[in-house]
C-alpha cells in the first residue's frame, strides 16, 4: 500500500483538559499552508493537475455558454434584413466578445484542461513540473476571463473586432473602456498561457516515464508540446502589441497615430504573427485527441505515427511564415503577397498528411462507432471542408474577393468548430469515464452528435453562399437591396444559418443534459477500460488517484497499454494479436507493486493570491492608479511568499505528533 504524504484531514484537538505549554509545531493558524483535501478549500488552493484540469474545463465550459449566447444574439440580429434585436454598438461588442471568448476563454483553456489532466498521465508522471505555476496559470485565466467580461457592466465591452485593428482601437474611435478591458484581459490570460507553456514543455521534456522516448510518446502529448512551443513564442509578440495599444490609449503614445507618421499596418503584422500560430494553437490539441481516438476504435495503431508527429511540428513551424495571408487585401505589395500565398499553400501539405493518415488509420480496421469515434470522424469530414475552403483563399487574387466576407466566416468556423470544437467533444466522451469514473450516455451522446453536426452545417454551410454573394462580415444589418433574388439570395440563407445556430445550441444543451443525467446518484460506475484503450493514462484507476500511478510504469512501446493487453502470437511477417489480459488485470498488477512513500507537492495560497493581483492591477490601470499600486503590492508579496515557501510542506505541517496537538491562541 502506498503511503502518501498529505496533511491530515483530521482536526487536531486537545486530547485532554490538562493545560500544556504550546509547542511550535502546532502553534499558529496564520499562513500555515492549506491542508484540506476535501471541501471548497481543497479546490481553491489545490495544485493537483487533475483538479486544475477539471476546473479549467468547468470555467471554459461556462465561457463556451457565454460565447454561445453571444453567437445566438448575433444570429438573431441577422436572421432578417435590418435586424433590431441589437443596436449597432451592442452588435459590435457582441461579435468582438464572441470571438474573444471562444478563442481565448473557451478553446484554448479547454485544450489546456485536457493537456493539464492528461499529459502527466500519458507520460507516466505524478504531476506537472511546476504544480504551483500550474495553479497560478488556471487562476490567472479564470480571473482574466472574468475581468474581460466585467466590461459588459462597466461601460461596454470592446467593439473593434477580435483582431482590434489600429487605429480603430484608439481612444478617439473607441471611447469606452472596452478596448482597455480587452487588452488587459488578454495580457492576463496571456500570462496564464505563457506560464502554462513553460510548465508543460518542461514536464514533457523532463518527466517522461522510464523507456518513453520522444517517438513513443502518445500523439496527444506530442501535439500539446507543439502547441506549447507555439504559445511560448507567440505570446510575447501579442504582449508587445498589447503594451503598445495600452500606451497608446492610456499614456498618449503615438504608435498608431497616423498624424505622427505611424503605420497602422504595424499592428496587423504584430497581431497576425501571433494570430496565425494562434490558429494552430487552437486546432492542434484537437488533432491530438482525434489521433488518440481513431486508433483505439479502429483497433489499429495510428497510421504513419512519425509522419503525423512531424507534420504537426511542420504545421507549427510553417505556421510562423504565413501570417500575412490575413493581409492580402491590406496593400502589402505584390512580392510579399505572392510569397505568402505560396507559403500558405505549402502549409496545406502537412495538414493534408494528417487527414490522409487518419483515413488510412481507419482503413482495414475493426471500427466501433461509439460517440467519441463519431466525433473523431466528424472532425475529419468537417475539417476537410474547412481546409479545402482554406486552399481557395490561399490563392491571393481569389482571397481578395473572399476575405472579410461571410465566406471567411464559414471557413474558419469549419476549421475551428469542425476541427477544434468537435475534437474537444470527442475528448469529452472519450475521457469522461477516466476523469469522473462515469460513462456519458451513448444514446444521448448520439443525439448530441447529430444535432451538433446538423446544426453546425446548417449554421456555417450557408455562410459560404452568403459570403460568395458578397455579404461582408461584421455588419450589424444587411439590406434587401443587396440580397439578390432566387435560390441563392442572401436573405434565405441568413435565415437558415440563424435556424441552424439554434439547432447547434440544442446540441450543446444535449451535452449538458447528458452530463447531468450521467452524474445522477445511482448511475453505474464506468468500467476501468471501457474503450479497450491503448495509452498510459488508462493504466490507473478511474478517476486516477491523487498520485496518478501506484507504480510509475516502464514503457516499452508506443501504445504501451495495448501491448500489455495483447500479445503477438504470429511468426515472421504474420502477426496475430490475442488478448492476454484485461485492463482491470493490468491495473491490478500495477497496484500490487505499488511504490511506498510518495512525496506530493502541497497546496498553496500563493498562486491564487498572485493571480488575483492581476485583475486588480488591471482595474487600477483603467480606473484608479491607487488600485494599481495595491495590486502591485499584493503581487510582490505573493511572489515572495511563494519564493520562500517550500514546494512540499515541512514535516511539522503533516500529521500532527500525538499528544502535542494543542493550539493556543495568540495574543499580541
Amino acid at each position, binding site marked *: 500500500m502506498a503511503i502518501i504524504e498529505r496533511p491530515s484531514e483530521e482536526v487536531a484537538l486537545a486530547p485532554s483538559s490538562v493545560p500544556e505549554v504550546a509547542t511550535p509545531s502546532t502553534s499558529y493558524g496564520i499562513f500555515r499552508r492549506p491542508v484540506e483535501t476535501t471541501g471548497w478549500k481543497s479546490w481553491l488552493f489545490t495544485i493537483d493537475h487533475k483538479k486544475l484540469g477539471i476546473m479549467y474545463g468547468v470555467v471554459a465550459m461556462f465561457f463556451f455558454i457565454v460565447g454561445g449566447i453571444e453567437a445566438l444574439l448575433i444570429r438573431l440580429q441577422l436572421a432578417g434584413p435590418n435586424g433590431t434585436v441589437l443596436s449597432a454598438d451592442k452588435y459590435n461588442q457582441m461579435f468582438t466578445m464572441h470571438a474573444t471568448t471562444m478563442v481565448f476563454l473557451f478553446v484554448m483553456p479547454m485544450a489546456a484542461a485536457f493537456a493539464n489532466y492528461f499529459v502527466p498521465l500519458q507520460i507516466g508522471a505524478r*504531476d506537472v*513540473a*511546476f*504544480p*504551483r*505555476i500550474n495553479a*497560478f496559470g488556471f487562476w490567472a485565466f479564470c480571473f482574466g476571463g472574468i475581468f474581460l467580461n466585467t466590461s459588459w457592466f462597466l461601460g461596454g465591452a470592446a467593439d473593434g473586432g477580435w483582431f482590434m485593428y489600429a487605429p480603430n482601437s484608439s481612444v478617439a474611435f473607441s471611447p469606452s473602456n472596452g478596448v482597455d478591458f480587452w487588452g488587459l484581459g488578454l495580457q492576463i490570460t496571456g*500570462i496564464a498561457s*505563457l*506560464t502554462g*507553456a*513553460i*510548465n508543460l*514543455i*518542461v514536464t514533457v*521534456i*523532463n*518527466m*517522461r516515464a522510464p523507456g*518513453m522516448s520522444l517517438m513513443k510518446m502518445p500523439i496527444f502529448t506530442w501535439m500539446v508540446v507543439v502547441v506549447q512551443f507555439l504559445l*511560448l*513564442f*507567440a*505570446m*510575447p*509578440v501579442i*504582449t*508587445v*502589441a498589447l*503594451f*503598445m495599444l495600452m*500606451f497608446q490609449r492610456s*499614456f*498618449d*503614445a*503615438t*504608435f498608431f*497615430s497616423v498624424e*505622427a*507618421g*505611424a*503605420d497602422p499596418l*504595424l499592428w496587423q503584422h*504584430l497581431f497576425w504573427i501571433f494570430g496565425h500560430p494562434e490558429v494552430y494553437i487552437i486546432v492542434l490539441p484537437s488533432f491530438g485527441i482525434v489521433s488518440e481516438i481513431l486508433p483505439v476504435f479502429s483497433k489499429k495503431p495510428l497510421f504513419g505515427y512519425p509522419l503525423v508527429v512531424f507534420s504537426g511540428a511542420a504545421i507549427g513551424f510553417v505556421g510562423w511564415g504565413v501570417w500575412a495571408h490575413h493581409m492580402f487585401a491590406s496593400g502589402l505589395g505584390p512580392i510579399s503577397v505572392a510569397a505568402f500565398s505560396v507559403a500558405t499553400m505549402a502549409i496545406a501539405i502537412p495538414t493534408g498528411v494528417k487527414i490522409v493518415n487518419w483515413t488510412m488509420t481507419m482503413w482495414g480496421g475493426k471500427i466501433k462507432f461509439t460517440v467519441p469515434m463519431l466525433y473523431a470522424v466528424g472532425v475529419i469530414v468537417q475539417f476537410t471542408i474547412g481546409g479545402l475552403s482554406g486552399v481557395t483563399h490561399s490563392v491571393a487574387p481569389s482571397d481578395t474577393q473572399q476575405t472579410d466576407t461571410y465566406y471567411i466566416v464559414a471557413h474558419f468556423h469549419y476549421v475551428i468548430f469542425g476541427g477544434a470544437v468537435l475534437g474537444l467533444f470527442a475528448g469529452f466522451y472519450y475521457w469522461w469515464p477516466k476523469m469522473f469514473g462515469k460513462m456519458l450516455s451513448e444514446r444521448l451522446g448520439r443525439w448530441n452528435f447529430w444535432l451538433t453536426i446538423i446544426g453546425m452545417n446548417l449554421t456555417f454551410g450557408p455562410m459560404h453562399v452568403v459570403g460568395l454573394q458578397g455579404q461582408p462580415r461584421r455588419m450589424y444589418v444587411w439590406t434587401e437591396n443587396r440580397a439578390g433574388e432566387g435560390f441563392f439570395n442572401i436573405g434565405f440563407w441568413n435565415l437558415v444559418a440563424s435556424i441552424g445556430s439554434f439547432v447547434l445550441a440544442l446540441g450543446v444543451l444535449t451535452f449538458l443534459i447528458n452530463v447531468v443525467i450521467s452524474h445522477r446518484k445511482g448511475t453505474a460506475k464506468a468500467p476501468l477500460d471501457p474503450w479497450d484503450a491503448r495509452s498510459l493514462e488508462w493504466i490507473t484507476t478511474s478517476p486516477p488517484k491523487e498520485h496518478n500511478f501506484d507504480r510509475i510504469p516502464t514503457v516499452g512501446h508506443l501504445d504501451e497499454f495495448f501491448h500489455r493487453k495483447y500479445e503477438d502470437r504470429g511468426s515472421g511477417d504474420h502477426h496475430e494479436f490475442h488478448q492476454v489480459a484485461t485492463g482491470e488485470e493490468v491495473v491490478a498488477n500495477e497496484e500490487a507493486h505499488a511504490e511506498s512513500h510518495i*512525496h506530493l*507537492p502541497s497546496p498553496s495560497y500563493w498562486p491564487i493570491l*498572485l493571480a488575483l493581483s492581476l485583475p486588480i492591477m488591471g482595474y487600477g490601470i483603467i480606473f484608479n492608479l491607487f488600485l494599481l499600486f495595491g495590486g502591485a503590492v499584493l503581487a510582490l508579496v505573493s*511572489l*515572495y511568499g*511563494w*519564493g*520562500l*515557501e*517550500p*514546494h*512540499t510542506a515541512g514535516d511539522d505541517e503533516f500529521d500532527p505528533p500525538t499528544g502535542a496537538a494543542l493550539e493556543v491562541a495568540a495574543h499580541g
Partner: protein
Amino acid sequence: MADTAVHSDAHIEHAGHHTSTGLSNNKLAMWMFLGSECLLFGGLISTYMLYRGRHSANLGPDQVWDIPFTSSSSFVLLMSSLTMVLAVSSANRDDDRNTKVWLSVTALLGALFVAGQVYEFTSFYREGLGFTTSLFSSSFYTLTGFHGVHVSVGIIMLMSLVGMISKNKVVGDKKEVVELFGLYWHFVDVVWILIFTLVYLIPA
C-alpha cells in the same frame, strides 16, 4: 512572473527524481522563459527599427545620443556580468560570504546602470524628447524602458537573494538558484548589447 516562480518551485529534488534529459526542471524552464523573452525584445526592437526614422520635424536619434556616456554605462552593465560569474563560481564553491559580496556588487553595478538610464532619459527629456514627441521617441523609450524594468527586477531579485542567503532562507538548491539568477542576468546583458548596437551605434 515565471522568473520568480521558477527558482522556488523545484520539483521534489530531495526525493531523488531524475529527469529524462538530466537537466533540472528549473533550468529548463528558465531557458524556455528566456526563449520567450527573446521574442518580446524581438517585437520591441522591430518596432523601434521600423519607427526610428519617423520623427519628421522633431528630434532624431543622432541629435540626442551621447555615445561615450552610453558606452560607459554599457561597460558597467557588462562588468556586472563578470561579477555575476564570480558570484556563481563562489556559490559553486559553497562560499556564502563571497557569493553575497559578488551578488551585492552585481546589484550595485546594475543599479548604477539604471541610474545612468534615468539620467539619460532625464537629459533627453530636457532636450525636448518626450515619450509622446514622435514615433521614434515612443518606440525608443518603450524598448529601453522595458529593458530597464528587466534590469530593475533583476536587481531586486539579486538583493533579495543576498538577504535570503544571509537568513538561510533559500528554497531548494542554493547553487542552482544563484546560477538561474545568473542566466537571467546574462540574458538581460546580452539584450542590452543588442540594443546598444542596433539603437545607438548603427546610424539611422
